[in-house]
C-alpha cells in the first residue's frame, strides 16, 4: 500500500480532486452559489461522456462523432421506460443502459470495419440518422421539445423514500455512478484488453501479428464506449428529468471530442478536466456575451496548436518540472559558499 509520501505529484492532485468531488455539496455553498453544485454534477456527467469518446480516440485511435447517439439512447431509454411503460427507477436505468449498449453493438458492427476519416464520417452519419428518426417520431419522443417525465423514487420501503429530487442525494448518486464507471474504465485499460486497444491504435496489422483481430478489438472498444456514453445519457436524463432529440445531434458528440482534446486525450481523467474547464468558461462567459462559443473556439485552437496533450499534459510537465527541481535540490551537495552561509564559518 502506498503512503502519502510515496505518491506521485499527479496522484496527489487526483486525491485532492477526489476530495473536492466528495465534499462539493458541503464546501461549494460556503464559497459560492448552490447552483454550482449542480454544475459540478453536470461536469461529472459530461466528463463521463467525454471519457467515452476518449476510450475510442485516446486509446483505440478512432475519432467518433457519434457518441451522442448512445447518450441519447440512454436518455430516451430511461425517459420512455418511465413515461410510457411506467417502469420504476432501477428497471428504467437498466433499460436505458441496455438500449445504448445494444445500439452501440449494432452500429459498431459496421463502424468498427472502418478507421480514420471513414470511421469519423460513418459515426456522423449514424448520429444524423438517429437524430432525424427521433425528431420525426415526435409523438413518442417529443422531438426537439423533449420528453419530460416524473422521477420515480430510487428506493421506497413503507413510508421511507429516497429520490433524486433531494439534490444532495442526486449529487452523490451521480458521483457514485460516475466514479464506478471510471473505476471500471481504469480496470479495463489496465487489463490485456486495454493493452490491445492501445496496440490496435498504434498499429492494427502489428496487433494482428500477436493474435488480435483488430476488427473485434475495435468493436469491443466501441461497445464499451457506447455503454459509458449510455450511462452518462441515463444520468443526464435523470438529472434534467427529460430526454430530447437535440442530444442525439452530432454537435453534442463534437463537444465531447473538444472536452477530451482540451483535457488530454489518452488519459483517464483528462476528459473530466476538459469538460470542467470548458463548462465553467461557458457558464461564466455566457452571462456576459452570447457569442461565448467564439472564445471556446479560440481556446480549442490554442490547445490543439500549442498543447496537444491538453490540460493533463500541461499539468504533468509543470509538476514534473517543479518536483524534479525539488528533488535535484534535495539530492545536490551544497557548495562551500552555501554551506558556510547556512552553518557559519568553521572555527
Amino acid at each position: 500500500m502506498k503512503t502519502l509520501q510515496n505518491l506521485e505529484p499527479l496522484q496527489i492532485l487526483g486525491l485532492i480532486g477526489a476530495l473536492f468531488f466528495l465534499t462539493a455539496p458541503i464546501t461549494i455553498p460556503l464559497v459560492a452559489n448552490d447552483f454550482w453544485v449542480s454544475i459540478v454534477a453536470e461536469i461529472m456527467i459530461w466528463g463521463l461522456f467525454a471519457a467515452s469518446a476518449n476510450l475510442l480516440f485516446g486509446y483505440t485511435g478512432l475519432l467518433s462523432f457519434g457518441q451522442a447517439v448512445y447518450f441519447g439512447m440512454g436518455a430516451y431509454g430511461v425517459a420512455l421506460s418511465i413515461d410510457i411503460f411506467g417502469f420504476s427507477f432501477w428497471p428504467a436505468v437498466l433499460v436505458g443502459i441496455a438500449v445504448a449498449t445494444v445500439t452501440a453493438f449494432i452500429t459498431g458492427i459496421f463502424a468498427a470495419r472502418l478507421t480514420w476519416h471513414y470511421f469519423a464520417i460513418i459515426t456522423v452519419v449514424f448520429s444524423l440518422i438517429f437524430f432525424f428518426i427521433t425528431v420525426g417520431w415526435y409523438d413518442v419522443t417529443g422531438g426537439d421539445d423533449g420528453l419530460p417525465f416524473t422521477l420515480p423514487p430510487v428506493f421506497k420501503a413503507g413510508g421511507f423514500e429516497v429520490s433524486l429530487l433531494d439534490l444532495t442525494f442526486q449529487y452523490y448518486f451521480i458521483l457514485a455512478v460516475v466514479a464506478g464507471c471510471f473505476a471500471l474504465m481504469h480496470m479495463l485499460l489496465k487489463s490485456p484488453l486495454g493493452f490491445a486497444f492501445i496496440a490496435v491504435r498504434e498499429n492494427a496489422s502489428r496487433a494482428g501479428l500477436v493474435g488480435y483481430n483488430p476488427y473485434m478489438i475495435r468493436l469491443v472498444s466501441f461497445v464499451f464506449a457506447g455503454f459509458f456514453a449510455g450511462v452518462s445519457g441515463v444520468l443526464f436524463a435523470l438529472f434534467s428529468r427529460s430526454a430530447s432529440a437535440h442530444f442525439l445531434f452530432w454537435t453534442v458528440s463534437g463537444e465531447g471530442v473538444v472536452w477530451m482534446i482540451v483535457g488530454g486525450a489518452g488519459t483517464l481523467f483528462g476528459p473530466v478536466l476538459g469538460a470542467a474547464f470548458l463548462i465553467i468558461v461557458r457558464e461564466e462567459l455566457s452571462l456576459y456575451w452570447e457569442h461565448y462559443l467564439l472564445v471556446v473556439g479560440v481556446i480549442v485552437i490554442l490547445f490543439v496548436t500549442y498543447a496537444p496533450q491538453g490540460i493533463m499534459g500541461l499539468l504533468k510537465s509543470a509538476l514534473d518540472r517543479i518536483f524534479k527541481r525539488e528533488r535535484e535540490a534535495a539530492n545536490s551537495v551544497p557548495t562551500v559558499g552555501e554551506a558556510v552561509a547556512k552553518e557559519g564559518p568553521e572555527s
Partner: protein
Amino acid sequence: MLKLEGLNTHYGKSHVLQGVDLKVGDGESVALLGRNGVGKTTTLRSIMGLTPPSSGAVTFGDTRTDQIEPHLIPRLGLGYVPQGRRIFSNLTVFENLCIGLNRPPTEDELDEIYQQFPILKERTTQAGGTLSGGEQQMLAIARCLVMKSKMLLMDEPTEGIMPKLVATLRNKIRAVNASGISVLLVEQNFVMALAVCTRIYIMEKGVICYEGSSHDLRENPDIAHRYLGVAIESS
C-alpha cells in the same frame, strides 16, 4: 512443421515470389538468405498472411495458414519478429509481454522470460519505445516466447543493432532454438546465419536458387560469393 509449396505472391502486377518451396522441421533452425529485394521479407509476410499469396500453399503443422485469417496464425504457435522490431512503443515492457496472452503472464512465465532476457526485468515498467534497438529486439522475441510459439520467423534481427549486441542476440536465438523452438531466420548478416542455422536457403529474384546445410555452404565459398556477393573467408 512449416511447409511452403509453389508459393506465388504478387504486389499489384509485380510477381515477387515465383513458386517458392521451403521446409522447416521440428526444432530446426533454417536461414533464408539473399540480396536486397529478392523477396525474403515477402516470404515471411506471405507465411503470416500479411501479403496473402496468390497461389501455392503454406502449411503449419496440419493447418493451411493461407486459408485462415492472419490474426489466427500466431495462435497456432507461429511467432513473427518483423524487421525493425515492431514492438508497441507506448506500452511498457510488461504490457508488451501481456499483449497476445489475453491475460497477465503468470509469475512462472515471467521468471522464465526474465531468466532468458535479464535486461527486460530491469526495464519492466519502462515504455517499449525507450529501449535500445537490441533490447527492443529481445522484447519482440520474448513476446513470441511468452505466447508459447513453436516456431519463430525472424526478419533481420541484427539490423541496426550495436555490433557488440549482435553476439548476445546470436546466443539468445541459439538458446531459443536449443529449447526446441524452430527458427526461420531471414538475414543479410551471412556470418550470423551460418552461426545460428543448420540449413540455408538462398533466394534470388523470388526463386529459391540454393538449398543446403551450413556446413556445405562453408565448404563451397563460391556459392555464397555467386549468390550473395560475400566471401566466406570474411566469416
